[in-house]
């Protein structure tokens, strides 16, 4: 039982990270109907920017909460630039091209970003000393002590706050309204005087910023990153987006949590070696049996 609770806590933490990345996939899919294959690498760049900022601020000796806030903002800002540029260079010229064109372009972009970071930052893994240590312990009298570290609390709380801000942005502001309108009908939205290109760019900026937060959490949580982390994390987050129903924002978060839980429980109870297989199998099974996911709308193709 205690072991189960421990896995649950770990799973929720991991799920928060996946959920934040999944939002980027699902938003882009909702608005332009493409799988942004390079999104996982945007997350990786976010993690690198966060790591670099942590090292720089670590030398200055500023208080920890200030560092966290600054790194968060810096990572979001710089990573958003990447998301914006990638959209402008690789996806925007392809609107109206054949269906697989943006996917191939995104694949190319993903290869470029990975190898670019490998060249710029080196291929070796980058370790970082833990910044937030300690935690709360439960069930001290039993055999297995459940530990909820402050870091896990920080990650979950930050995710909840960001989700709150994000939901407000999408449901209550003009920007969110424009975005939802673009999802429904881009031509009509343009006719009503909304700048569609700008809205799409902002979608990419928001998606990349959330991915960069996930990147920062990844650096803090695992303490080690390399240029290749975006691939696996990206696939898992995409699975999360599909599981929750692609195009649905609450679905992305839900799917993220589920994938996080499935992965930790699989690693905890079934086998550690095959934990990545679990995520891929879930993806295949979900796509075959419920392609609309939990909260998605059915995709009807019109002639």
């Amino acid at each position, binding site marked *: 039982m205690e072991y189960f609770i421990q896995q649950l806590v770990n799973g929720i933490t991991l799920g928060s990270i996946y959920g934040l990345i999944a939002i980027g996939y699902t938003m882009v899919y909702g608005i332009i109907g493409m799988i942004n294959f390079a999104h996982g690498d945007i997350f990786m*760049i976010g993690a690198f920017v966060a*790591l670099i900022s942590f090292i720089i601020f670590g030398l200055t000796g500023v208080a920890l909460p200030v560092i966290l806030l600054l790194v968060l903002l810096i990572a979001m800002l710089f990573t958003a630039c990447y998301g*914006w540029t990638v959209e402008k260079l690789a996806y925007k*010229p392809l609107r109206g091209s054949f269906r697989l064109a943006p*996917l191939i372009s995104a694949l190319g972009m993903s290869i470029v970003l*990975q190898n670019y970071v490998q060249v710029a930052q080196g291929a070796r893994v980058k370790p970082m000393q833990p910044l937030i240590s300690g935690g709360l312990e439960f069930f001290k009298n039993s055999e297995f002590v459940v530990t909820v570290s402050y870091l896990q609390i920080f990650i979950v709380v930050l995710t909840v706050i960001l989700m709150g801000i994000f939901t407000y942005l999408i449901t209550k502001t003009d920007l969110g309204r424009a975005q939802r309108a673009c999802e429904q009908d881009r031509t009509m939205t343009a006719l009503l005087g909304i700048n569609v290109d700008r809205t799409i760019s902002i979608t990419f900026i928001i998606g990349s910023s959330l991915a960069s937060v996930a990147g920062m959490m990844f650096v803090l949580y695992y303490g080690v990153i390399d240029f290749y982390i975006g691939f696996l994390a990206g696939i898992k987050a995409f699975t999360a987006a599909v599981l929750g129903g692609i195009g649905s924002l609450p679905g992305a978060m839900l799917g993220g949590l589920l994938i996080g839980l499935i992965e930790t429980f699989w690693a905890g109870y079934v086998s550690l070696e095959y934990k990545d*297989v679990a995520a891929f199998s879930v993806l295949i099974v979900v796509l*075959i049996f419920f392609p609309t996911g939990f909260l998605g709308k059915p995709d009807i193709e019109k002639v």
Partner: protein
Amino acid sequence: MEKKDIIQSVKDSLFTGVIALALFGPIVGLRTASKGEGLFITPQWGIVFILVGLCILGRFLINLNSARKTEFTFFSKFTSKLSSVTEEKAKHLAITAILFAVVFPFLPFTDRYFMDVAIMILTYIMLGWGLNIVVGLAGLLDLGYVAFYAVGAYSYALIATTFGWSFWICLPLAGVFAAFFGILLGFPVLRLRGDYLAIVTLGFGEIIRIVLINWYEVTNGPDGITGIPRPSFFGLPFKRSPDEGEASFHTFFNLEYSTMHRIIFLYYLILILALITNYFTLKIRKLPVGRAWEALREDEIACKSLGVNPTNTKLTAFAIGAMFGGFAGSFFATRQAFISPESFTFIESAIIVAIVVLGGMGSQTGVVLASIFLIGITEMFRDLEQYRMIAFGGAMVLIMVFKPKGILANRKPTILMHGDKK
């Protein structure tokens, strides 16, 4: 050009510079390196300024005389010229290329290194042709093609090391296994829409690799399989000193022993395998199933309404593509004599997809040109391995943006309603 425009484009270029600074500043400018314990930062501002400067200059030039447009027309003129030439003289070109390929091992400048590169290029041509059936003809983006390559290689290696059967028995078996895996995967997933299919095949490729790494009892895990038997020349092994009472290739033909014999044999082997793939593709394109593939690629709904069963039709393409992948895999295994999961990563799939996409989906000549270009030329700059992958990815993006049908666009229908109108 008016003054206002110039001011505008200067502003625009400076904005580009700011963005470029934001992009390159942290990632390129602040390189992390571990020294002892922990990470330290080595600034590299020089490179950043060069990159930012290049971005500003490039943007300004593009704005100033819309350089992109003229360059682009030149580029598209060149490629359309190229594709019309290759189309008109397809027969002559093909015969010349095959003749060249046949005499290549005996040309005076050909040495061991050239042969190795040529074998590698031919392997990729074969893989590209195999994948072209799936991507180019049937229009299914398969990002996990390397899985079938791996299945072919491992089934060849396992059968050959366990039962000691000869290459010529194992090769078709490996192809059958790979095709079987293709059907196994394809049957459930081929109903999915194009982009989902791409991701699922990618996932499948990774599953195969993870299983190969972890299934110690059979695959020997990350250590791979060693001692895979080399192929023999119709029963004559390429050994310096054959066993008692056994003839070897060089003793049988009274030749001086040379390791080149085996290399040349391997070269012809892959050349023949690749040509079989090509011949098969060209023939099957003209059969009903091949036409159904191309029709499905163009419009799935129309096909359904005409009574073509999309799942079964796609399944045949998938299985046949997988089979050729399996053949290539067993060739790879016998050539290397050693295989490990390392050789079957996602990047390998991406390279094969890049070859097909850059060559022009559906174009057999395009695959050859793209393989020679991507594998051959980059092989010479092996030290710049990482830059080579950046160039690969960048080329994929550029092709999609400027010439989405590939360098040699060949999506002409193989049959027209009112004859071939020119």
